[in-house]
C-alpha cells in the first residue's frame, strides 16, 4: 500500500512524502528478539487457599508469580523485653516459638516466586520477599535470611513441580515452615522495633511497628522488583 502525505512546514514550504507499507513475514526468532524484554502482567491467575490471589508477570524466559501476604510466619527465638516479645535471631538460648506476625495496614508485603518451564517440568528459580509502600517503592524487611535484593535464603526444598500452581504452593509451604536464623543478619535493633508481640492470655498479639516502618527497612530497586505485580 502506498500513500502520499503533504506536509506544511514551519517555514511555510510544502513537502510531499510518499509512504510505502507492506506486511513483512517475520519469523518467530525475529518476534522473540523484538519482544525479549516485554513482559505481560496478568492479575488473579489463581487463588491459593489460605494465602489469596496470585498474579503473574510473564516474560519470554520465565514467569514471576506474586502474592500479597497478610502474615509472616516467624519461626525463631524470642525474648521478652519490657513486656514486649521481640525476635532474637542470633540467639541460641532464648525460647524458640512459631509466632505469626500480622502485616499492618500501612505495609504491603509481597511474596514472589520465579518459575521456568522446561519440557514437562516447572522449576522454582527463587523466592523473594518485598515490602512496599502506596507508591510502589520497594523495601527489604529487617529480617535475616534475606539477601540485599530481597531474595530469600530458603534452604533445600522440592522446587521441580508439574505446574506453576504447585511451585507457588511448595514455595509458600517452605516459607511457612522455615526457621529464621542469623544468616545475612544485620542489626537486631530494626527487627525488634518492627516485629513485636504482646503475650495475651492464650496467644500472641502483633503490636504496631515502633516508628516509621520505612525507616527500619532498606529501600531497594531491582529489575525483578519492577516486574512484581502488587
Amino acid at each position, binding site marked *: 500500500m502506498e500513500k502520499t502525505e503533504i506536509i506544511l512546514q514551519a517555514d511555510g514550504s510544502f513537502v510531499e512524502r510518499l509512504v510505502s507499507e507492506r506486511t513483512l513475514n517475520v519469523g518467530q526468532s525475529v518476534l522473540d528478539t523484538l519482544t525479549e*524484554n516485554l513482559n505481560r502482567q496478568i492479575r488473579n491467575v489463581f487463588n491459593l487457599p489460605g494465602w489469596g490471589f496470585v498474579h503473574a508477570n510473564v516474560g519470554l524466559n520465565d514467569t514471576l508469580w506474586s502474592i500479597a501476604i497478610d502474615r509472616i510466619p516467624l519461626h525463631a527465638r524470642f525474648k521478652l523485653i519490657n513486656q514486649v516479645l521481640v525476635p532474637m535471631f542470633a540467639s541460641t538460648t532464648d525460647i524458640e516459638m512459631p509466632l505469626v506476625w500480622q502485616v499492618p495496614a500501612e505495609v504491603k508485603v509481597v511474596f514472589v516466586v520465579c518459575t521456568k518451564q522446561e519440557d514437562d517440568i516447572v522449576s522454582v528459580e527463587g523466592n523473594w520477599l518485598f515490602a512496599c509502600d502506596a507508591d510502589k517503592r520497594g523495601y527489604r524487611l529487617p529480617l535475616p535470611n534475606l539477601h540485599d535484593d530481597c*531474595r530469600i535464603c530458603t534452604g533445600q526444598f522440592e522446587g521441580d513441580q508439574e505446574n506453576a500452581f504447585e511451585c507457588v504452593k511448595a514455595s509458600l509451604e517452605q516459607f511457612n515452615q522455615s526457621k529464621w536464623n542469623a544468616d*545475612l543478619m544485620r542489626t537486631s535493633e530494626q527487627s525488634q522495633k518492627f516485629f513485636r508481640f504482646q503475650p495475651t492470655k492464650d496467644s500472641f498479639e502483633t503490636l504496631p511497628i515502633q516508628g516509621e516502618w520505612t525507616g527500619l527497612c*532498606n529501600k*531497594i*530497586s531491582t529489575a525483578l522488583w519492577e516486574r512484581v505485580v502488587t
Partner: protein
Amino acid sequence: MKTITVKYGVDQITKQVEDGFTFGDLQDSDTFKAALGFGDNTKALVDGIEQNRDTIIPAGTTVRIETAANTKA
C-alpha cells in the same frame, strides 16, 4: 559542571555534578544516597547496561541505580 539524572525505583533526581564525576562516584555519593535512599551494594545502569565504576558519566545521561544481589554471608 554537567547535569545528570539518577533514578532509583520510582524516585529520581536531576543534579549538577563535576565534569569528571564517574559512576563509582555516584554509587558512593552520600548526597545521592540520602536523596534517593540507596545503600552501598548497588550497580549503575544506562539503558539497561551495567556501567563500569571508573567510567565518567556523560553529560545529560540518565542513570538507573539498582540494588545488587549479595552472596551469603
